[in-house]
């Protein structure tokens, strides 16, 4: 029992990271029906921005995260404007291929500029300590990741639920033509969505740096795919679904590597994907029935 709780505690921080990344996938899909395969790579860029902010600018981890979020918000807006907007009225497959292109571009541009090797996340920025609480070993890095991720999710929930921008985002994703008739600028709203989603991914990138201690130009691929699975699991386009999906995948993965074999860690997420596509393609929170018209 003690060990199970310990595993769950370990899984929570990983789940929080997946949830943050999954949110970006789901928000973008909700508004332009595109699986943004470059999203994991935006997370990677965020990790590097955080890394350089700590090593070159000497900032602490919180400031590094904020800088990474700001840079990637801008990056997300640029990617949408340059790569996706011109294709908005073309076929889905065209945008999907473009997304994969953007993904490869970010990965290999980073390799070209910084080299393929991993960089050790400086532990001066974050000294890992373990605390013994009620027989559980709690690492401060897990607490940091979990608390900041949940904090960001609360901020996001607030934005989406209560601000004018958030309501406009929901309106555009529900019916973009009706939203236009309200005077909502669809372009601006889509840009905002990319900015927010990319900022969350950047924060997740810095968290991955803290969590694993090292970063590299291809680090976005696997977590990106797993977060995608999390978004599909929760029901793509549904924000609370992405959060729950992220935690489920994180916890499952930790349990599998804790009790079974860590080699199956990656297989389990993709097993979940196959299962959900077979059993309930709309995801845990998805409705199969249409709305009343």
């Amino acid at each position, binding site marked *: 029992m003690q060990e199970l709780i310990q595993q769950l505690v370990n899984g929570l921080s990983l789940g929080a990271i997946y949830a943050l990344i999954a949110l970006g996938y789901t928000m973008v899909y909700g508004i332009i029906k595109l699986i943004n395969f470059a999203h994991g790579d935006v997370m990677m860029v965020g990790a590097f921005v955080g890394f350089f902010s700590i090593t070159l600018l000497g900032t602490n981890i919180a400031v590094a995260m904020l800088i990474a979020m700001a840079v990637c918000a801008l990056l997300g807006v640029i990617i949408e404007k340059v790569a996706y907007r011109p294709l908005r009225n073309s076929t889905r497959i065209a945008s999907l291929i473009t997304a994969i292109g953007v993904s490869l571009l970010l990965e290999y541009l980073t390799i070209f500029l910084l080299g393929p090797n991993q960089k050790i996340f400086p532990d001066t920025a974050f000294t890992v300590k373990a605390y013994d609480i009620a027989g559980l070993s709690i690492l401060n890095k897990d607490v940091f990741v979990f608390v900041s991720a949940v904090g960001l999710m609360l901020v996001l929930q607030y934005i989406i639920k209560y601000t*004018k921008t958030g*309501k*406009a985002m*929901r*309106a555009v994703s*529900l*019916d973009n*033509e*009706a*939203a*236009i*008739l*309200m*005077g*909502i*600028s669809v372009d601006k709203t889509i840009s905002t969505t990319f900015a927010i989603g990319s900022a969350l991914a950047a924060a997740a990138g810095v968290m991955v740096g803290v969590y694993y201690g090292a970063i590299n130009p291809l680090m976005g691929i696997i977590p990106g795919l797993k977060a995608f699975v999390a978004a599909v699991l929760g029901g793509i386009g549904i924000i609370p679904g992405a959060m729950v999906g992220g935690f489920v995948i994180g916890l499952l993965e930790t349990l599998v590597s804790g009790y079974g074999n860590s080699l199956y860690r990656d297989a389990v997420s993709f097993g979940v994907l196959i299962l959900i596509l077979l059993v309930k393609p709309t995801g845990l929170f998805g409705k199969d029935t249409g*709305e*009343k*018209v």
Partner: protein
Amino acid sequence: MLQIKDIDVYYGSIHALKKLYLEVEQGSIVTLIGANGAGKTTTLNTISGILRPRNGTIMYKGTDITKVAPEKIVGLGISQVAEGRRVFSTMTVVENLEMGGYLRRDKKAIQTDMEMVYSRFPRLQERRKQLAGTLSGGEQQMLAIGRALMAQPELMLMDEPSMGLAPLLVKEIFSIIKDINERGTTILLVEQNANMALSIAHKAFVIETGEIVLQGTAEQLLKSEDVKKAYLRC
């Protein structure tokens, strides 16, 4: 107030509006009637800026709005109650109304207007926390009208507001439209229910396959044999 001159609108190679003209005088109710697929919705969406005419001009209060962006057109005072109501289904009634006033900054006046919408549609007030998708068809139509009113329109475009509603509700909606007009909003009303539309309109245009084939005062059209044959079956 609104002059449409000889616009041609295409969907790809489909020529949906052919040299269409239309005029709406300030303060009036003008109705555009026509059968399924005649081009009524296309006309309204072109005025709203969602579709662009290939030729021709649309003048509104003396300025050319043919190439103005749709969100700017709302700001100029033209709002549309779209066909099929198009409420934001998983947003609450209040949120829908807020979206109607999206371009406005005057918080107090927005609040006053929301009270005005509630006094006009008490059902909406009772259900203000409810998701719009769970409202009945009639309530959704009221919400769609209320939402458009939140933009303080000078010209309101209404696309088949009576569609799919029970006769009693249709009557109610039409009396609301008349009332909105009497309080100073000009209305361009698209309808298939020609009887009802002509009973509240001042002027009317008849559209067939993208062309205006008849126009006149509502009385003239009510008497016209052509209109009777084609549109006043009931």
